[in-house]
């Protein structure tokens, strides 16, 4: 495996979530979705957030990305990034981070892109918003370069295509490329492989690891799949029903889980070593390059 690094804890903290509460007001009685949620993300680290559906992991991720703005919902606590609280700062400040310092990719790649816009235009969107000083050619050049980096063969061709002409795996690569094009500090990956089949899944995991290693980008990886988390993440946070159950270095948590819930989750992993797939896909990905 060898992906877990022990020295990450000493490096700089880039994101800190303190005491996050998220409450829904859809019904007569308010429903608490996330409670007492704390998280620390270090520079260059891959942090896993695991739990079954409804555990509040995706909500927490959306809150960090600044995408929870429903009226029927209250949030409290602090999300500290770059010396400012993302929950309370002005919208314009939050927007200046979105897509430029904090990017996010989603579970459903097929519906995550605008169906009427060419891939190239969508790849460059964050640059158009945050880097107005770049010329059209510079943006295009960087987009093509990033598309090659995320393993899209024939970037020139894909650049002119529309989302419906691509497969789910290719679109997820486009989403990752569009997310990292502005060299953000944090990439949030919200169940990025759940809608993809297993081989594609392994390729995307390998790609995320490569981006982490080559660009030093911190990744918050949300998944219900513990075996993926074990392959990819340095540290892990286990959530259940809106609460954090356990947190620690990935191997430590896997080898010596302290909580019964974590044990149960680990026992539920099918006994197949997915790293074999990851190995072949690494080779494939470099083949495409």
């Amino acid at each position: 495996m060898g992906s877990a690094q022990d020295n990450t804890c000493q490096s700089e903290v880039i994101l800190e979530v303190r005491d996050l509460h998220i409450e829904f007001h859809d019904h007569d009685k308010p429903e608490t979705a996330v409670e007492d949620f704390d998280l620390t993300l270090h520079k260059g680290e891959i942090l896993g957030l695991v739990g079954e559906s409804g555990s509040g992991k995706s909500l927490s991720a959306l809150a960090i990305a600044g995408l929870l703005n429903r009226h029927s919902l209250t949030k409290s606590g602090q999300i500290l990034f770059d010396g400012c609280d993302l929950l309370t700062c002005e919208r314009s400040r939050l927007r200046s981070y979105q897509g430029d310092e904090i990017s996010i990719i989603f579970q459903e790649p097929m519906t995550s892109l605008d169906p009427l816009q060419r891939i190239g235009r969508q790849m460059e969107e964050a640059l158009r918003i945050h880097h107005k000083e770049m010329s059209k050619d510079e943006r295009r050049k960087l987009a093509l370069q990033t598309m090659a980096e995320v393993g899209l063969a024939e970037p020139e061709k894909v650049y002119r295509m529309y989302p419906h002409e691509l497969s789910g795996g290719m679109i997820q690569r486009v989403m990752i490329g569009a997310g990292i094009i502005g060299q953000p500090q944090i990439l949030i990956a919200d169940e990025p492989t759940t809608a993809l089949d297993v081989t594609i899944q392994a390729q995307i995991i390998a790609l995320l690891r490569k981006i982490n290693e080559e660009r030093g980008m911190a990744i918050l990886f949300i998944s219900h799949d513990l075996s993926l988390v074990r392959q990819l993440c340095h540290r892990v946070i286990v959530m259940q029903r809106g609460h954090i159950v356990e947190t620690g270095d990935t191997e430590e948590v896997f080898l010596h889980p302290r909580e019964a819930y974590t044990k149960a989750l680990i026992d539920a992993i099918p006994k197949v070593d997915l790293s074999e797939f990851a190995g072949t896909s690494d080779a494939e990905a470099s083949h495409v390059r």
Partner: protein
Amino acid sequence: MRYILKKIASTLITLLVVSVVLFMSFQLISGDPATRMLGTSATPERLEALRAELGLDKPLIIQYLSWLQAFVRGDLGTSYVYKQSVAGLLATKVPVTLWLAGISFVLMCALALPAGVYTAKHAGSPTDRVLMVANQVIMAIPPFFSGILISWLFGMVLRLFSPGGFVSYERSFWGFVGYLVFPAIAIALPRAAQVAKLLRGSILEEAGKNYTRTAYSRGNTTSGVLYGHVLKNAFLPVLTFLGMSLANMLAGSLVVERVFGIPGISTTLLSSIGNRDYPVVLAIVMWIAVVIIVINLIVDILYRVLDPRIAEEG
């Protein structure tokens, strides 16, 4: 390009089929023109001679083809009642309907598109609620009533035009346009209300889709998301309705032409049906068919241009 040619070809075939059906049905309902022209007391020999002269003794298919040939060349036959060419008769009516439809359509879009975008952007706000109620009311008012209201308000109270005092475009073009604005309001209002409601709903639906969330995650403002992504997607379902509306407007609006005393094709169609002036009726019905089919063609081509997903099927 190939797609457009294919579409045009299939449109021409549709038009041909429509013309056959219309020609045949008018053969059936209009009876024998020779009898009508000579009266029932004419001798069989004279009837026979006139039939031969008019080509009515030839097989139906030959009659159809010669009618079609003349029709395409602009010879629409002779009015039974006015004894003048149908083409000449309609030459003064069609421009009136065209202008009325054009002004109505522009008014409809100018009212509906901003209203739809605004109410969607501020959905749930007091302004949105007021506008949506107003919308429902406008939709519920039949054009003859809104026509009377508009005549009364703009004509009698504000004296912006004189109801019933239609100005022909030969006399004064701007007087003609100025007169048509008011009936155009009556035509445009209920449709504008429908378009605004449709667009609002469509924008709100698109705003809930995943790509909107992606757009926000890239740092877009609400306006950036709306105008950069949502609006174009939301406009697609509205386009069909806009096309249908334009086709309806071009086909003429009988009630409004009547209320405002406008000599357009609907008024002519109604009086010709009353007079059993079949050549005129046939020409106007053909006009309506052509308008609807051609607008459908244009809408199809626009969809093809706007939505890359449709290109697959071409």
